[in-house]
């Protein structure tokens, strides 16, 4: 047991300080009240201890103002805690626009982390200090949870749809990554490290590892390999809807609904195309790719579709991405990390 004893976690992200402050204040407040109650209680038992077995107590006259006071005062404290907690929550959950978009796939029992520039890591994630990093998360199998105590962030990783988490490292160092949702036999082994590096070191590390080309260019390879390009042409609309500028756009589908083409929509359109048919197109034309693609292949394709901005097919690093300007800022019903089944984001481009 020679490792240093730890009683306080590392604080290494832009929100860690705020979480620490709130936590410590809560500890101080709650301890004071608890001590006060304990003191009053113990004091009463000692001061008013029976001297003979047949003594009875003096009934305290019921005073409604007292009852009201100790109802209303705690209530106001609680509302303060609620408000502070909610504000902090929004800071934790809302990624800034300029975040580097990365992807993470959880599966029994490892993490696969994908940089947009191409490098892929297993159970480790290198990130630059001082820049926000946003992770789109999905599970290959059961529910996991992406937990970095030093950053004070946690997000469940679900099968079947993407959730989002983000963090901005402020202190270079090596920080625990834990799976925080029980996922089977080796749940306690599904751990790793986040390496927060000085920006120059990070750049050096990145270029050393980007052998395969950017993530979206890998996606472009799959786009051709799996035959998508045969129907989804670039010059004109064919049998299949046009994919240029798709990401973030509103799409009208058969049945009258309008949906926003976010990551979940694109994933569903690949794996279960008949679920939503674009208005004017036919069902049962696009093959169903369920079971034929792994989650990381799907993510690569999505990365490619995102990159289909002004010039289709060009290899663009998608760190800035083609995400709509307002992504992460809208005050709609669902913030990041939320459900995005059809029709839930009213977004403007």
């Amino acid at each position, binding site marked *: 047991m020679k490792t240093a004893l730890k009683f306080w976690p590392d604080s290494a992200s832009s929100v860690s300080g705020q*979480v620490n402050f709130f936590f410590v204040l809560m500890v101080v407040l709650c301890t004071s009240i*608890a001590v006060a109650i304990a003191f009053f209680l113990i004091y009463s*038992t000692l001061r008013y201890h029976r001297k003979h077995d047949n003594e009875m*107590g003096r009934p305290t006259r019921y005073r409604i103002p007292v009852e009201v006071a*100790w109802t209303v005062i705690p209530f106001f404290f609680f509302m303060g*805690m*609620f408000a502070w907690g909610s504000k902090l929550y929004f800071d934790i959950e809302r990624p800034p626009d300029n975040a580097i978009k990365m992807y993470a796939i959880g599966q*029994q029992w490892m993490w696969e982390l994908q940089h947009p520039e191409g490098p892929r890591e297993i159970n480790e994630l290198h990130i630059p200090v001082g820049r926000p990093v946003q992770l789109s998360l999905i599970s290959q199998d059961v529910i996991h949870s992406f937990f970095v105590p030093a950053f*004070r962030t946690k997000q469940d990783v679900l099968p079947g749809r993407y959730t989002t988490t983000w963090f901005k490292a402020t202190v270079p160092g090596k920080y625990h990554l834990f799976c925080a949702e029980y996922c089977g036999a080796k749940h306690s082994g599904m751990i790793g490290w986040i390496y927060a590096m000085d920006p120059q070191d990070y750049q050096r590390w990145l270029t050393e590892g980007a052998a395969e080309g950017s993530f979206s260019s890998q996606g472009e390879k799959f786009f051709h390999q799996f035959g998508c390009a045969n129907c989804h042409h670039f010059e004109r609309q064919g049998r299949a809807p046009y994919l240029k500028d798709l990401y973030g756009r509103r799409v009208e589908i058969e049945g009258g609904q309008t949906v926003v083409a976010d990551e979940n929509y694109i994933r569903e359109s690949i794996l279960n195309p008949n679920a939503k048919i674009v208005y004017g197109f036919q069902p049962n034309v696009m093959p169903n790719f369920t079971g034929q693609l792994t989650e990381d292949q799907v993510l690569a394709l999505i990365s490619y579709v995102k990159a289909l901005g002004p010039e289709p097919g060009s290899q663009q690093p998608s760190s800035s991405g083609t995400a709509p300007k307002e992504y992460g800022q809208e005050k709609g019903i669902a913030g990041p990390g939320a459900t995005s089944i059809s029709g839930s984001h009213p977004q403007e481009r």
Partner: protein
Amino acid sequence: MIEEATEQSVRETYLNKEQGILSWLLTTDHKRIGILYTISITFFFFLGGFFALLMRLELIDPRNWLVSAETYNKLFTMHGIIMVWFFLIPSIPNTLGNFVLPMALGAKDLAFPKLNLASWYVFMLGAAVTIFALFRGGVDTGWTFYTPFSTTYSTTYVTAATVGVFINGFSSIMTGLNFIATVHRMRAPGLTWYKLPIFVWSHYATSIIFVLATPVLATTLLMVAVERIFQVGIFDPRLGGDPVLFQHMFWFYSHPAVYIMVLPAMAVVSEIIPAFSRKPLFGYKAVAYSSIAIATIGFLVWGHHMFVAGISAYSAMSFSILSYFVAVPSAIKVFNWTATVYRGAVSWDTPMLYAIGFVGLFTIGGMTGLFLAALGLDVHLTDTYFVIAHFHYIMVGGTVMAYLGGVHYWWPKISGKLYPEGLARLSAVTIFLGFNLTFFPQFVLGYLGMPRRYAAYPEEFQFLNILSTAGASILGVGYVMPLFYLLWSWKYGKEAGPNPWRATGLEWQTSSPPPKHNFEETPIITTSLPYPYEEMKEELGLVQTR
């Protein structure tokens, strides 16, 4: 003044009126059924505790050393299932509630005595199926059975376990139904709602939760079992299902379930504190209404178990604010209990030790709930040891202490004997100290980031884990002691008499142990208040000295 229960010269009691094992197994007497339940839950407490002991031993060392990871996963699952459904939920209602409730109402029995007996058999049947799952190799899904792991990936006896819990749920529903009907229709003449002891109010509130929440658990587990057996994709995203829907349905029951665990504990404490302060409970109506408020608002907060599960921010905020609302009535109770002790004529008998301990530990546990209700903090703290410490403070520091306090308080009534006070105080203190050493370090571990359900962990967490295990061994010793001295006192203890504590409450107006039908004659209530110390002072032989 209550018309006199005639003095007993022929000591025929519920214990000796009929003899033989069949008279116990086929009894419809609520008191005997309460004892049957007590035997059952005591067994399950020690079984669940044994699993906890193995877990704590494993956690002394950061690596897997005592058991494999797979076995550890089964240990925490079985610990949870047994403790929640086969110990905590029935712990006070089906033992002390069964025994005391009809007596507190001046009734001869519950409304439906045969239903009461049936509920015990249903409980035992559920237990048998769950034990079967245990012996065949156990379950490893966690007591929370999250999908799709439980429906599609786990290779253990999930279906058997869910069926066992499903059956157990019907025992809860039957009990709740019985209690509600009894409180409504079986009160003695003159016993209006606002003269009922808080023990009754709180059990009534608990029963509302029993009957409204448990059916939803039944349905949820039914769907899990169907999905497992028939491989249909109710919660499988590959087939259009939503695994988060399971969480909503599960927690819709399981959050109110924790109020099932704490309201009866509060019921017991609300009786002990006035009794050992020899004065009425301060703020009776506020405490009564608080019980109902906790039961009601408790149905609206389930999403606070799911803040990082992928629900929307606005949904999370709603559940957060409601969780703060539900904290208010509990705070009211704590203040009212404290005010009751003030200016009392206090004694440090064992039940009072447990009750005061409850107030302290429940306050800590409840306050850490405030931390978890704050969204920004919960992101960091959820699924860590902070949550484990939080709920153990309430369920063990709270409910188990209250249960033991109640057992000691009503022991003279149940057995007719006094337990040995010195030994009892020693075990209460041992339990209190052992408990805090076990669970307080876990708050620190939680903030440090140690996740739940980890069989192995990074080395820097080891010291706190060792402290926790040390505490657990002390706690274990504390729990075993009452088993011995209580049973000893049943045979060799001093005679208790009808009212050794000089408490108010109808159950103390009859002999110890009571006759089979509780009262020689149906009591008629002529006092005007609950906890009528002033009105009954002569009868109880009490003197005001302050």
